[in-house]
């Protein structure tokens, strides 16, 4: 197209058009290239933009690895000094230089599993209710709203409420059944945790249950099954992996939950002997002692606790996600 004059260009650009595009473009904004066709100044050239996107894609991976490596690096003083006995030693006494994290592993497991046990019934009920019995309507909107609300309440508020309401209540019950009336302890923490994790497994459960194909349900019903039997024999087996994934994700959430647990668990570094005893979880020991930690090994031990927490929750989350992905592939 080189060598054409403006008239020719006008003719080529738009055959019936009186003006031409070049006349329309203000020179400040736009340049014209050798072939006489408009070229706008690019915000970013395509290769640089794509490079930017690639970089951002890698960013997440790099961030994760950086977190893992930082945790490992900061735990090194403790790992070097204490080694593997860190995980099985049952004495945590910073003053004496003893750092065994077993009490916290136990505390975490006990509270989380107990919370899960309590929560499963409720979240399964809510999933079935919202996914099968009542998918639309006023009642289901209310319950959906409540579940969403519960998920949005910050942990520290749960903890405060626990202190103000649950702890006295549990204390009352403990006095009645002649157990040491701490009020705080594993049971209380598990109760609060269960309320906090119900929304997660409930929403996921509801989704998978409502996605069970209608023709399967109708086939069962047409054979004379009651609704309960359809739920038990068709819906739940079909939605099994989704429900399991929801449970795993809830577990992951419970393991890492910090504030509410810290406020009602009683802050004791001894291995808990019963569910009524005060204790500490991995998260709560960090919350309680990190700012007071003096000495390299003390600090590094707490970071090591964080590292264990990180690894455990990461594994559980990955397993949960793999189950979800497998589910969607199967369909």
């Amino acid at each position, binding site marked *: 197209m080189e060598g054409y004059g403006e008239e020719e260009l006008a003719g080529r650009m738009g055959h019936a058009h009186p003006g031409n595009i070049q006349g329309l473009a203000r020179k400040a904004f736009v340049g014209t290239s050798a072939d006489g066709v408009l070229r706008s100044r690019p*915000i*970013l*050239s395509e290769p640089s*933009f*794509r490079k*930017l*996107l*690639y970089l*951002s*894609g890698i960013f*997440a*991976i790099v961030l994760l690895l950086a*977190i893992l490596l*930082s*945790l490992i690096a900061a735990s090194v003083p403790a790992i070097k000094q204490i080694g593997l006995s860190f995980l099985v030693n049952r004495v945590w006494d910073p003053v004496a230089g003893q750092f065994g994290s077993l009490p916290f592993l136990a505390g975490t497991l006990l509270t989380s599993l107990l919370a899960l046990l309590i929560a499963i*019934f*409720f979240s399964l*009920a*809510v999933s*079935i*209710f919202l996914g099968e*019995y009542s998918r639309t309507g006023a009642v289901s909107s209310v*319950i959906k709203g*409540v579940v*969403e*609300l*519960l998920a*949005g*309440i*910050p*942990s*520290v*508020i749960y*903890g405060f*409420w626990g*202190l*103000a309401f649950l702890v006295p209540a549990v204390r009352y019950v403990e006095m009645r059944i002649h157990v040491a009336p701490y009020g705080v302890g594993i049971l209380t923490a598990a109760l609060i945790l269960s*309320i906090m994790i119900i929304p997660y497994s409930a929403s996921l459960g509801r989704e998978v249950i409502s996605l069970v194909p209608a023709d399967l349900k109708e086939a069962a019903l047409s054979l004379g099954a*009651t609704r*309960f*039997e359809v*739920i038990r024999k068709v819906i739940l087996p079909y939605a099994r992996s989704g429900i399991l994934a929801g449970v795993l994700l809830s577990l992951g959430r419970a393991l*890492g939950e*910090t*504030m509410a647990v810290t*406020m009602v668990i009683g802050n004791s570094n001894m291995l808990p002997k019963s569910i009524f005893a005060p204790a500490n979880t991995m*998260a709560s020991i*960090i*919350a309680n002692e990190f*700012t007071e930690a003096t000495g390299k090994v003390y600090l590094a031990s*707490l*970071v090591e606790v*964080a590292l264990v*927490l*990180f690894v455990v*929750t*990461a594994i559980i*989350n*990955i397993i949960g*996600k793999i189950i979800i992905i497998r589910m969607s592939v199967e369909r």
Partner: protein
Amino acid sequence: MKERSVYKRILVDRLFKALVICLSCIIILPMFFILYFIVRNGISVINWGFLLSLPKPMGEAGGGISNAIVGTVILIVIASIISIPIGTLIGIYLSEYKRGRFPYFSRLSLEILQGIPSIVIGIIAYIWIVVPVGTFSALSGGVALAIMMLPVIVMSTEETLKLIPDTLKEASLALGVPYPRTILKVVLPAGLSGIVTGIILGVARIAGETAPLLFTAFGSPFMSTNIFKPVSSLPLLVFNYATSPYPDLHALAWGACFVLIVFILSLNLIAKMVTRRWKVQF
């Protein structure tokens, strides 16, 4: 014989339904309890003095939460400035590159990041920022919150952009619009409501976070706008006052809870409205 067993089955069916409904309704109880506590205890404390004045020293009556409110805002702003641009870019990346090894690992990393306990992220921010800088600071708190906000923004951006039909992109490309401009001026605006919703929900999530701030922002009884100094925040204030032995401070903590809950609920409502009003239909 046959009739009785059918009768039994129907009975079981009815009982099960009743059980399910019962359990579902019991869920409502904790929520009402919590809200009741917050409203009853919190509302009596709320007045302009409360919102606008600084906390009094321990043991003295009165005082307010103005520094906590300001601190929360500062932390949210820092976290947003860091996480929104990066998060949006990652979201664009993931929606443009659906297959491949890097997108897969990127997504996996984000899933894991989302599941990291908030206190661990607090430790990371401590290691990365508090230690080099030398003091607790709003900046470190903001960074911790940014790491927590990032996956939320990425996922909502990706989901939103995935819903935009390819033909929109093609229409723009066919007009000779270069690829970067197509993304920034056609695709992103079409998905704006979803992206904004994601940001609002991300803010709602970090507004109530305490654990990551325990040893980053750390909390402070003073009003501060210096990002290199410790800063107070509503959740931190609730934690500190709630665990103190003074009933006066407990009352203030309820007030702070009230403000916090109102804030978070409003954000959720606004997010819903944004989706309803602004969502672009195809």
